[in-house]
């Protein structure tokens, strides 16, 4: 979205996402993790040692030149080194600071160690994933993390808007569990209105029947189909070559189809498994039926819709060469969003940021590198 984002790193404390098995050669290399490259595209990187007094002083000076700070240290740590919001807002009173943690900056459990899978359990996300009537499976995605990133970005931009209008800075406290709970509102209303606990719904969605993922020709090939109206139901049966199914006593209306969901899904699966995914997808869409192939990571990059929209972007990385990164979550018409940069090498911009923003000389920067403040 155009902000200049300076990532603070250190060779003394390598970002966990930089680690992993090398893709080129056999030696460990902090520049070879595509995960890191995807999440950090377009940023700058400076290497600053937080264990060095001089390093901390440099960061404090930088805070004076920035509009916002993002951090996700264990709550309490930044206060110990004089880098918490209260300390930094004395340097920059209009600062907006986003603190991201597992369960928040305050409260009896604020210092617990937390990762996305554990937080998915704590927030209730996991409890809603599974096949109806069977064991809970859990979400098994780092969704709590990515959802926290999205929620945090909204909080940060909203606070920046407020600052633009009022001149006032503030602290945004993002608890990953709270961010996850807030996208489960329906489950909480279900409980508070009916006093019953929502269980995994599988692929069932109220108002749509049939609604699910059905096998198609090929290995592990599936199509999502959601039927809303009687007309769509009749069309689906016709496209699948079984128009009689639409009027059979077990499936003739929404209520009957709901009651007989198990045998309905079975009957449809037998029919869809004879069809090629793409042909069936377009045939159903031509009838106005919500249908979509289930894409895997390999399909997503080649999918004509995403290709035409430029959802994923090819970029040259100095170590890994050509690689794909993901584009923006939303588009703004007044911005062409053409300027994409590869994820920074560790400390790639240290010199530029120190000289341009803090007006240091080359000698001063070199001395700070030698003293391990900038490393």
């Amino acid at each position, binding site marked *: 979205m*155009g902000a200049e984002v300076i990532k603070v790193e250190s060779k003394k404390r390598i970002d966990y996402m930089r680690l992993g098995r090398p*893709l080129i050669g056999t030696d460990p290399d902090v520049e070879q993790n595509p995960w890191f490259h*995807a999440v950090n595209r377009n940023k700058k990187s400076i290497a600053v040692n937080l264990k060095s007094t001089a390093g901390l002083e440099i960061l404090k000076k930088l805070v004076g030149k920035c509009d916002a700070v993002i951090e996700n240290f264990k709550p309490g740590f930044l206060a110990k080194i004089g880098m918490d919001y209260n300390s930094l807002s004395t340097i920059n009173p209009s600062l907006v600071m986003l603190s991201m943690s597992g369960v928040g900056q305050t409260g009896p459990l604020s210092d617990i160690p937390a990762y996305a899978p*554990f937080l998915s359990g704590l927030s209730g996300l996991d*409890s809603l994933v599974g096949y109806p009537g069977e064991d809970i499976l859990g979400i098994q995605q780092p969704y709590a993390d990515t959802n926290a990133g999205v929620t945090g970005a909204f909080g940060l931009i909203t606070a920046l808007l407020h600052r633009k209008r009022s001149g006032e800075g503030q602290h*945004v406290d993002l608890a990953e569990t709270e961010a996850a709970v807030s996208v489960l509102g*329906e489950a*909480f*209303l279900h409980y508070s209105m009916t006093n019953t606990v929502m269980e995994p719904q599988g692929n069932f969605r109220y108002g749509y029947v049939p609604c699910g993922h059905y096998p198609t020709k090929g290995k592990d090939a599936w199509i999502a189909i959601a039927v809303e109206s009687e007309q769509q139901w009749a069309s689906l049966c016709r496209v699948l070559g079984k128009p009689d199914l639409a009027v059979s006593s077990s499936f003739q209306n929404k209520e009957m189809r709901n009651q007989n969901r198990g045998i309905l899904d079975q009957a449809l699966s037998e029919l869809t498994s004879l069809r090629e995914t793409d042909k069936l997808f377009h045939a159903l869409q031509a009838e106005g039926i919500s249908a979509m192939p289930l894409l895997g990571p390999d399909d997503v990059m080649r999918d004509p819709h995403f290709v035409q929209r430029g959802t994923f972007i090819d970029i040259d990385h100095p170590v890994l060469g050509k690689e794909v990164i993901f584009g923006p979550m939303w588009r703004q018409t007044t*911005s062409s969003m053409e300027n994409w940069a590869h994820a920074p090498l560790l400390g790639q911009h240290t010199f530029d940021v120190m000289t341009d923003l803090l007006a240091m000389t080359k000698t001063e920067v070199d001395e700070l590198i030698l003293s391990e403040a900038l490393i």
Partner: protein
Amino acid sequence: MLPFSEYKVVEIGSRIGSGFCGKLLCGFGAEVILVEDTVDNYLRHLGPFPDVVDPEKSGLFGYLHAGKKSLHVNRRNVHELDELVCSADILIFGTASVYSQKETELFDRLSKSHNLLISIHISPYGMTGPYSKYAGTELTSNALSGITQRMGKPGRPPLTMPLAQAGFQAGYAGASGAACALIQRDTANHGDIVEVSEAEAMATVHAGYAVTRFQRAGILDKRAGHRLSNLPYPQTVLPCSDGYVELNTPEGSQWKRLLQMMGSPEWSKEERYRSRMKNSRSPMAEELDNKFKEWLKDYTKEDFYKLCREFEVPSGPVRTVDEIVKDDQLLSRDFFTSIRFHDGERYLVPGSGCSLSKTPAKRDLLVPRKGSVSEQINSAERNLLKSGSLAKEVASVRSSAGPLQGLRVLDMGWVWA
């Protein structure tokens, strides 16, 4: 003053994404007018309901629309809509599942109402691309995004995301886009169109990492039931005496502490369990799952969680909603709030996903009855924001700079966040 105070928003549509986008702006101060046609908003019929089906007591509608004003407008009366949008700063437009020509024309006209208008368009697949006119639902948006293929058991149908995650993520994208466009509007003096595709929102942020990993590293994450594949064991959900727990130790030191927590069982010293990556694959994973299941039989979720905290192991209970509403941590932070219906009934709902120290989100908001403010909003109140200003194509002010250009952020974050 809240961040969106004094901004007027007109919301059209009955998608969860557009509703959540409006909810976020409303929670942080915007005046949001929800346009309701003669046909009921679809969400009013979805529930949950406290007892009988009642369009004025829908839980999901209430969650998304509490705090907004409901205005009854016949959508065929284009002049009324024109007048309303002319007075707005932001238009939120959520399209129905079938992207009809009429909808396209309506958005096209309304988005040109005045040159400072910020129009947010939320749809399953976006405004461009070969599928843009295709029918879409939450299920199909998730399917296209690539996130669904990785959930569920091998050999069984993949599972979609719980509830309406594509809609919620699209709502966040729309609301964030609105804030960016407002920041830019102050200096650039023009509005914008923020375009959100539910599928793309899920594909980029939430499934994008799997694409990048596959493209360069050849790692294909496949669904592995209750486990997460391609990461060191354990990342798994297992049953205990009164429910389920999430067992997770990404770092070696945490794995060692987990084993200590179990009393350092003899099996854990065997050479065959040395590689945690091998442990994450069949048949080792099943073997280890069984050992943990046997041990967990004697523990309740909360006993297990207590032990995890003592040993600093980042694992814990899979909580259900009834447990979460009593969670000490959430209660101590006053996280939950309520929504009110016109009959005075209040129901507990999650609070804001992030807490802003000086401008907290509004709480205990009233769910609007259908058309409840129609009488209060008359022509006299609909002051034109920029009377006489000429509508112009926002595309004509396209530049390569992003809306946040000029802002500098120091990112001290680690890993994902």
